[in-house]
C-alpha cells in the first residue's frame, strides 16, 4: 500500500491556481476533417488510396457489378487470397506509433483490398510512459506489469453486395484516433453501419447520406472540440449529440431522398467507453469472455413479436414480414433514437453489422470466427465470405473493433 500513501501526499500544483471555470464552448469550430489534416501536423491522416475518391462530403463512387460469373468457391478463394495477401498499401507504414489517425470510408463500393487498420504495436519502451507520478492516472505498482502490449484499439471493416443484389445499399464508416501526450486526450473512435432501403438508388443514397452526415456531425461537434480542448464543459451530453447527428441525417434523407430510408447503428468510442446510437435492424454486439451479447434492439415487427412470446426466434427467421421495420431513418420528420453507453472491458470486441450478416450467419458461427481469427480485418473478410457462402441474398457489412486486453 506504499503507492497509496504516496499518492495521498499533496501535489504542488493544485487547489487555488486550478480554478474551476467553464470556458465558452458556444462556438464550435467549423473545421472539417480536411482542415484537421493540414492544421494538425502531429496527427497523420491516412486514407487508403483506393478509397480516396470518396471524401466525407463527396458523391459516392460508381456502383458495383454483381459477381455473376464466379461461382461460390472462387469468391471464397478470392477473399481468402485477399486476406492472406501481403499488405500492399502505402501510407500506413508512415504512421507513427505514437499518434495514429486512420480514416476509412466505404460507400457502395466493391470490397476493398484489405488495408490493415490495426494500429502498429508500440515498442515495449513506450509502455512505461503511461505511468509516471501522480499527475496521470495512478495505477498500483503491480498493474504496470499487467500492462498489455496492445495499447490501441484495432479494427477491420468489410462490405459486399452479396450474390443476389445488383447494388450495395449498405454504407460503412470507420474512424479511430489514438494519441499519447501530457494532454491525456482519450482515444476517440466513430464506427457506423447503415443499411439503406428503397427502390432505384434511393437506398444506397439514403445510407450514404446518413454515414456522411453523422460522421461530419460527430467529428465536428465531438472530436474536433476534444482535440482543440474546447469541450471541457460541453453542454450537450454525448448521447444527445449522437442522437442529434442521427436526427440531422434523418432530415437530410427526408429532403434529398424522400423515397429512401436506412437503418443506422453507430458507436462513438471515448476512452474505454462506447456510446451507441441505433435505429432499425442493423446490430451492434459485444463479445467478451466468449459471450456474444447483442447490445441493440431490432426495431422490427418480428422482434416485437418475439418479445411478446408470440413467435420464436426460429419462426422469426422465416416470417413473411421479417423485414418490416417500425423505425428507420427517412420515415418521419422526427426519428426516435435508441442510445446507450457501455464500458468496454479490456479484451472485449465490438461488432457492427447489417442484417445481411446476422440473417445468414448464426451467433455461434460469428463468435467462433471472431474468437479464432488473428486480426479484426481478417475476421470481417471471413464473415462476409460466410454470409455469401450461405446464399448471399443480401448486402452484407461488418465492422469489428478489438479493445486491447
Amino acid at each position: 500500500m506504499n503507492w497509496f500513501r504516496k499518492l495521498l501526499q499533496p501535489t504542488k500544483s493544485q487547489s487555488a491556481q486550478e480554478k474551476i471555470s467553464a470556458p465558452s464552448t458556444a462556438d464550435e469550430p467549423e473545421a472539417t476533417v480536411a482542415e484537421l489534416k493540414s492544421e494538425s501536423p502531429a496527427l497523420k491522416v491516412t486514407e487508403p488510396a483506393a478509397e480516396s475518391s470518396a471524401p466525407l462530403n463527396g458523391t459516392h463512387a460508381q456502383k458495383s457489378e454483381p459477381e455473376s460469373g464466379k461461382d461460390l468457391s472462387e469468391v471464397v478463394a478470392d477473399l481468402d487470397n485477399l486476406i492472406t495477401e501481403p499488405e500492399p498499401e502505402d501510407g500506413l507504414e508512415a504512421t507513427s506509433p505514437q499518434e495514429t489517425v486512420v480514416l476509412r470510408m466505404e460507400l457502395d463500393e466493391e470490397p476493398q483490398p484489405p488495408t490493415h487498420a490495426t494500429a502498429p504495436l508500440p515498442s515495449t519502451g513506450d509502455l512505461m510512459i503511461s505511468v509516471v507520478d501522480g499527475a496521470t492516472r495512478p495505477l498500483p505498482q503491480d498493474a504496470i506489469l499487467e500492462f498489455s502490449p496492445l495499447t490501441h484499439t484495432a479494427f477491420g471493416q468489410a462490405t459486399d453486395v452479396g450474390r443476389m443484389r445488383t447494388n450495395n445499399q449498405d454504407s460503412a464508416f470507420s474512424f479511430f484516433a489514438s494519441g499519447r501526450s501530457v494532454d491525456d486526450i482519450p482515444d476517440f473512435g466513430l464506427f457506423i453501419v447503415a443499411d439503406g432501403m428503397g427502390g432505384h438508388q434511393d437506398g444506397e443514397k439514403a445510407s450514404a447520406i446518413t454515414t456522411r452526415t453523422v460522421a461530419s456531425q460527430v467529428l465536428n461537434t465531438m472530436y474536433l472540440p476534444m482535440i482543440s480542448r474546447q469541450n471541457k464543459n460541453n453542454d450537450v451530453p454525448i448521447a444527445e449529440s449522437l442522437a442529434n447527428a442521427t436526427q440531422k441525417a434523418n432530415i437530410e434523407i427526408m429532403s434529398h431522398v424522400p423515397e429512401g430510408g436506412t437503418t443506422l447503428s453507430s458507436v462513438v468510442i471515448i476512452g474505454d467507453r462506447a456510446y451507441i446510437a441505433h435505429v432499425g435492424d442493423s446490430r451492434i454486439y459485444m463479445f467478451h469472455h466468449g459471450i456474444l451479447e447483442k447490445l441493440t434492439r431490432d426495431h422490427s415487427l418480428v422482434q416485437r413479436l418475439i418479445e411478446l412470446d408470440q413467435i420464436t426466434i426460429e419462426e422469426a427467421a422465416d416470417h413473411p414480414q421479417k423485414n418490416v421495420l417500425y423505425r428507420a431513418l427517412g420515415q418521419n420528420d422526427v426519428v426516435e433514437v435508441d442510445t446507450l453507453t457501455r464500458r468496454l472491458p479490456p479484451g472485449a470486441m465490438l461488432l457492427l453489422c447489417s442484417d445481411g450478416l446476422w440473417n445468414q450467419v448464426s451467433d455461434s458461427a460469428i463468435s467462433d470466427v471472431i474468437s479464432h481469427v488473428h486480426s479484426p480485418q481478417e475476421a470481417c473478410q471471413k464473415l462476409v465470405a460466410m454470409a455469401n457462402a450461405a446464399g448471399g441474398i443480401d448486402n452484407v457489412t461488418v465492422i469489428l473493433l478489438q479493445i486491447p486486453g
Partner: protein
Amino acid sequence: MPETTQFTGMGNESSGTASLKSNSVISNRYKIHSIIGSGGMGTVYLARDLNFTDVKRLVAVKEMQASTKDAAMRGSMIKNFRREANLLAQLNHSAIPRIFDIFEINDRAYLVMEYINGTDLEQLMQKTKELPIDKVLEWAIDLCDVLDYLHNQKPDPIIFRDMKPSNVMIDSLGKVRLIDFGIARTFVSHVKGTMIGTEGYSAPEQYKGDANPQSDIYSLGATLHHVLTRKDPRLEAPFTFHERPITNSNANVSDDFAKVVEKALQSNQSDRYATCAEMKLDLERVRLSLSGMVVAVPRPGAPAGAPSPTGQAGAAPASPTSFFDSEATGTIQPKWAFKTEDEIRSSAAASKDLAFVGSYDTNLWAIKQETGELAWKFPTRGGIASSPAIDDQSRTVVFGSEDFNLYAVDQRTGRNSWTFQTKGRIRSTPRIAHNVAFVGSDDFKVYAVNMSNGRQMWAYDMGAPVRTRPFVTNELIIAGCEAGDVVGITLSGARKWSYRTRKAVLASPYVDEEGNCYIGSTDGYMYALDVNNGFNSWRFRTNGAIYSSPVENRGLLYFGSTDSNLYCVNAENGREKWKFNAEKPIIGSPLIHKGEIFFGGTDQNLYCLDAENGRERWRFFTGGPITSAPVVAGNLLLIGSMDHVLYALPLVS
C-alpha cells in the same frame, strides 16, 4: 369463417381506375354523382337511386375490378364476391350498412349499399383536438355491440379483422357505423426488401395468421386508445400501448374507462375480454359511474394514520413486537422512536448494535438498536446536519458539525479520538476510505484527513461551499459544490477533471460499477459522467431541483426531485422507467434494500415501493418533513424526521 374478397376501402390510398363518369346511369337505375373514395381494388361512387322518383335517395356504389387478367381467376374472384355480398346482405344491425343490390357489368362487380353521410373517426381526429369522453364511450359500447353481433353469427363467426378509426363512420345522427368489411386482408409479403411501417391496430396473433373474435377486441382497444390519447399507433413501436397510459395523455378519461381499454389491449389473448359482450358490460358500468349512479371504487394506498411518536428523549419505551398491521389500518408500528431535542436533518448510521444520529440540537446521539435506549451523546457547539460515517477499523464514528469541526468519536464510549478544524461549517457527510476521511466544508475545501491521527493530508479548493458527500473510488474522489461544479480529484489531491452543471450541486455523487458517475443538480438534471474523464454521456431532466442523492441497483438509478417525483431511470441511457409521485418535494435520498426502495418525503411520509415497478407497498407517517435517507440496521429501518424523532421500523421480510 367466410373468406371474403376485399372490398374497396374509403381511405385515400392509391387510386383504382374509375370507369364511371359523373351523371352516367348504371344498371338503368343508379345515376352516378361523384367519387367518394377509392382504394386498391376499385372505386366508391355516390349515386342516386332513380327508382325513387319522388325522393332523392342516395346510395353508395362500390365498383370492384378484378386485379388479374386470368379469366379463371377473375371468375373465382367474382364468385367470392357474390358469396360475400349474400352473406353481408343477411346481416341486420343498425351499425352495419344495408346491402341493396349486386350486379356485374363488363367484368366489374358492383355492390349497391346504404350511403352513410358522415365522417370517419380518422378524419374526425384530424378535425378536432379532443372528442367528448361520453361520446367516445357511447361509440365504444356500440362497437362492442356490433362486433358481438358479428362474432355470434352462425354457423361461423364473422371476424371483422380490420377495426381501425378509418373504418368507423360517425353518421349524421352521431351513431357509429362499420364500413369496409375488408375481410380477406392478408398482409403483403415483402421478402425481397426491407420495408417500413406496420398496421398499428392489429393484434399480435394476427401476424401469425390467426384472427379470432379476440383479435377484434384488441383492434377495438387500439382504436379507442388512439382516439383517447391521440397517439397514432402506426407511428409507434407495435404492441406498445401499455407504454402510453391513457390517463397520462388525457386527464379526462376515468381510470375505469382506461382499464377497460387496457384490458382489451393485452398481448396475450387469455388476458383480454373473452367476448365483446363482456367488454360491453364493463363499459356500461363505466357509463353508469360517469353519470354518478355507482359509487367510486375504493382506491388503494390511502394515507396511513399517524402513529404518535411515543419516544421520549433518552428513554424510549420499546414495544415488544410489531409487524405490518395491514389488516386493520395499513399502518406500520415503529419498534422504537427516539426523540432528540431538535430537528433531525441528516441520516443515521449504524454499527453492529448502536445507531448514531446527529441532531440540530448540536448532539450526536448513540442509541441501542435493541431497545432504543440512549447509549451516550456527544455534544458539539453547532447544529449537526452532517450524517455520521462509521469506521470499523478505528472503531470510531466520524461526523461534521456547524461548529466547523470534524469529530472522530469512539463508537463504544463516545470519547473524542480527535478533532479536525476547518474554516467553515461542515454540512458534508464524511466518506471514509483507504484509512482517510474525505469531507467537504463551507470554507470551499475538500479535505483528506488521516484517520489515524486526524491530521490533514491535503485540501482541494472547490471555489464554493462543499456540502456533498465525496464519493471515493480506487483512483478518484468525486465531489460537487455550490457553484455547480463536480470535480474528479486524484488520491493525491490534484484535479483530474471537472464538469459544470448550471446550478448548485447539493446531492452527493454516486459511481456505479460500470464507471458511470451520477450527479444530481439543483438545475433539475441528473447527469451521467464517465468517472475517468468527466465526459457527460446523458442527462435526465426533472421539473424540480435535485437534492436527493442517487443510488444505482441492477442497471436502474433511483433519485427524488423537488417536483415531488421519485424517479427510476435506466442507467444505460437515462430513459425513465417509472416515477412515483409523493405529492410534495422529495429532498431525501432513497435506499434500496432487497428489491424495495425506501425514501422520505417532505410530506412527512416514509415510503416503501417495489423497486421494479414503483408500486407503493406501504407508507409510514412521521410528524415532520423528512430530508434524510433511511438506513438499514440489522432488521431495523432507521429514519430521522424534522419532528426531532429517529424512528426504528421493523423490516418486514
